[in-house]
């Protein structure tokens, strides 16, 4: 191992709130060698971001202070360096890539200018030279037309391109160390693969040292040399990646590895229910050549009012008691399909019938039936709950409006629901803002169950959660479908989860179903190249199953134009 460029020694960070100090980073020590990629993993709130920000002394609040330890950059202690020195260090020595490129890029400044800004400042080049250098960087990070794209604004790019720009900005000052804070969490797996590949390339070309923060062990396994695991501000263990992955010491690390969804053998596949449901001849839900189009950019002139087809010609049958997974990239029309099915978005053409009632023909009756017998769990746990109502109030309201339970039995029913989703009963008095994401998600599920529905559509209801919580929720669903003969449509862009939970899977691409079949079948032998690409892009926790191995994937991705990426919470 070559000499470390950066060593952290006993770094301690505390926050002072209400006169009390809380330790956020607790005596953390670690080393980063030249040319090395260090993976920093840990659950949300464990202090990963804070640790990296402490390195360059960009703490999020004046109440948070470094109160011990040292950060040695080639022998210099950054915790005691002057603010002027730090200006040189930031960007010049240590570059940062942030998780969410959409919010970290200046929306009102041209991409190129944001890159050349650092060049001009750190290298003292003239405007013209800086522009040339910036264009060079844009080329490096994979912009196809850098000269023109220099003058574009961030919002004109897809999420993947924005992340590339973000990397470009970090590279602009020619740093020795790159800190990448969850650089791909917001992106689709296919794009994620590209970005990770880009990082590896840059490391090759420039001999950079990289600290890669993530909560996805798969990514670490695929890209890093060493792994450090954090929890509650403490560094639990660190070491070479293979050591940690194969022989984890800490109980938490073991749990983390075990709950990774790319380990399919761990949980047994649910029993195929198809046999039993085949008996009931009538499908619960029938979708026939469904089209949903949205108007975009419609202004005074009719001619400019274009429509985009979010769902184009989807046909699908869902049998009672079935658990069906819908996968596809962001923007492929999964949510739109779900909403259209439930009558929450107008249908442009086609038919949806629920238990034989055609929504288009008997709209009022169909909607009434849908409202009473179906429920949806929304993707974003916070935004789907009214922030002003307690969970109890919310459930009471649903139960009252639905009227399936007598008023006197409502409190009892609420307790039951909370038990069912594994929330303590005192949560009835809480409001969403004082609950964690996972807890909110359970409340959302409880709300769906309160309707006592035949069909639940769960729209990416685990995407925002930690792997550990993800695993809990999946288990909950499995239990519920088994117990209550519920029909479940489970939407996700994460194939691993779907593979775990669903017996049947539908793959969507650009509003169309490109593949459909038993999960086992589809994952083992994808017929459509897109499905294959999706599956290949999942970073496996096994470092010996390298990501991006197939050259065909690369071609596939290049031929697909960048899709609009929706921001995730």
């Amino acid at each position, binding site marked *: 191992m070559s000499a470390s460029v950066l060593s952290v020694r006993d770094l301690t960070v505390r926050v002072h709130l209400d006169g009390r100090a809380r330790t956020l980073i607790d005596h953390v020590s670690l080393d980063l060698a030249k040319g090395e990629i260090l993976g920093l993993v840990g659950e949300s709130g464990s202090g990963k971001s804070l640790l990296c920000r402490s390195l*360059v002394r*960009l703490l*999020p609040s004046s109440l948070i202070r470094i109160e011990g330890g040292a950060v040695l950059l080639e022998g210099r202690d950054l915790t005691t360096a002057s603010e002027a020195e730090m*200006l*040189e*260090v*930031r*960007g*010049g020595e240590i*570059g*940062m890539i*942030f998780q*969410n490129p959409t*919010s*970290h*890029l*200046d*929306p*009102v*400044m041209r991409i190129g200018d944001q890159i050349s*800004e*650092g060049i001009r*400042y*750190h290298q003292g080049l003239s405007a013209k030279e800086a522009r040339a250098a910036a264009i060079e960087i844009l080329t490096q990070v994979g912009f196809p037309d850098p000269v023109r794209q220099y003058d574009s*604004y961030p*919002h*004109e790019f897809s999420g993947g391109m924005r992340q590339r720009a*973000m990397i470009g*900005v*970090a590279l*602009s*000052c020619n740093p020795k160390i790159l800190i990448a804070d969850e650089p791909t969490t917001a992106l689709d797996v296919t794009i994620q693969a590209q970005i990770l590949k880009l990082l590896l390339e840059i490391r090759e070309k420039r001999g950079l040292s990289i600290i890669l923060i993530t909560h996805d062990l798969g990514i670490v396994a695929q890209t890093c040399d060493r792994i450090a695991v954090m929890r509650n501000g403490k560094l639990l263990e660190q070491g070479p990646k293979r050591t940690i992955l194969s022989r984890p010491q800490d109980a938490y690390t073991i749990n983390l590895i075990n709950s990774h969804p790319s380990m399919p053998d761990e949980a047994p596949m649910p029993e195929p229910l198809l046999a039993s449901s085949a008996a009931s001849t009538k499908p619960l839900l029938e979708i026939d050549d469904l089209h949903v189009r949205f108007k975009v*950019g419609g*202004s*005074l*002139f009719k001619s400019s009012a274009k429509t985009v087809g979010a769902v184009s010609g989807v046909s699908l049958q869902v049998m009672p008691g079935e658990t069906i997974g819908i996968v596809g990239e962001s923007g492929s029309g999964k949510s739109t399909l779900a909403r259209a099915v439930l009558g929450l978005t107008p249908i442009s053409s086609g038919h949806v019938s629920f238990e034989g009632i055609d929504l288009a023909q008997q709209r009022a009756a169909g909607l009434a039936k849908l409202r009473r017998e179906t429920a949806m769990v929304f993707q974003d746990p916070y935004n789907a709950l009214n922030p002003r109502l307690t969970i109890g109030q919310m459930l009471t309201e649903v139960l009252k409006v639905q009227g399936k339970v007598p008023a006197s039995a409502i409190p009892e029913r609420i307790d039951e629901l909370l038990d069912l989703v594994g929330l303590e009963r005192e949560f009835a008095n809480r409001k969403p803002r004082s609950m964690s994401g996972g807890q909110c998600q359970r409340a959302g599920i409880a709300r769906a169950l309160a309707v006592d529905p035949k069909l639940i559509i769960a729209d990416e209801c685990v995407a925002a959660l930690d792997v550990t919580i993800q695993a809990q929720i999946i288990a909950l669903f499995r239990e519920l479908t088994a117990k209550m003969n519920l029909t479940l449509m489970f939407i996700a862009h994460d194939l691993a989860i779907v593979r775990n939970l669903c017996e049947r899977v539908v793959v969507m691409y650009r509003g169309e179903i490109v593949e459909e079949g038993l999960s086992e079948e589809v994952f083992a032998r994808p017929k459509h190249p897109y499905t294959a690409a999706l599956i290949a892009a999942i970073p496996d926790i096994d470092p010996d199953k390298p990501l991006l191995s197939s050259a065909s994937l690369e071609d596939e991705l290049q031929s697909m134009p960048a899709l609009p990426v929706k921001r995730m919470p």
Partner: protein
Amino acid sequence: MHRYKFILTRPLQFLPVIFGISVITFILVRLIPGDPARNILGTRATPTALANIRAQYGLDQPMWLQYFYFLKNLANGEMGKSILYKIDVFPLIATRIEPTIALVLTSVILSILIAVPMSAIAARNAGRAPDHAVRVISTFGIGFPPFWLGLMLIIFFSVELGVLPVSGYGTTFTDKLSHLILPALTVALSLSTVLTRSLRSAMIESLKSDVATAARARGMPESVVFWRHVLPNSLVPTINLLAVNIGWLIGGTVVVESVFALPGMGQLLVRAIFSRDYMVVQGVAMTFACATVLVNFIADIVTVAVDPRVKL
């Protein structure tokens, strides 16, 4: 660029607004009790003289007919005659429009010059003494009625120090400018408060934003972070606020005009309302309305220019 296409289509939306305003003013001023004829005749009014004047200005006609004549005149590029000034309303307004525009412009510029540094100081020291100082000072700006503030400024700058003219409007550019400083300052003291509040909170937000963090992370000194990233990002919400306020200002300069004897539209309007000079009220109201609409239009253009994400 097609983002700016609204410049061509938007003006069509102005027409109903202007039309609506013309109808409302027309009816409204005629609902006010008080007789323009009796008003100009004063204590010497006699029935024949009254009838004479009413007939002369068509005031004896039914209201819908009066409105019809008004539209007809408008089509000919006239706006009817002022009862008080005995001349056509258009040239009358033309003589009075400049000081008001100049006042509004200077006030806006001045308040921006005050608001930007003030909010910058406050935002960069949020929660500390300078921030509190800015907030207290700006409350004073908005709390004191402008007619009081204006007089204090006159007493201090013009009478005690003798450096600026007391009141009035000049003839040459520099002369006009020196006459405009105090009234514009009076307006700016309150307008800048509103802007400062908005800018300050936008800046505080922006200073904490990921954009600022990212800039710091690439080693930009705080001043660059502030002026190149925080300020432009904070401007967008303030532009709209400024536009709404300029709208209010255009119709509300009367007090300042009167304190500083600026021969502008505000004074013309008040005198016209008080003497029930219907056509002048109508003309001024419509001029103000057009100006307000224009300001909002410009604000839209500026917003589009400042924020590349905005599409209208």
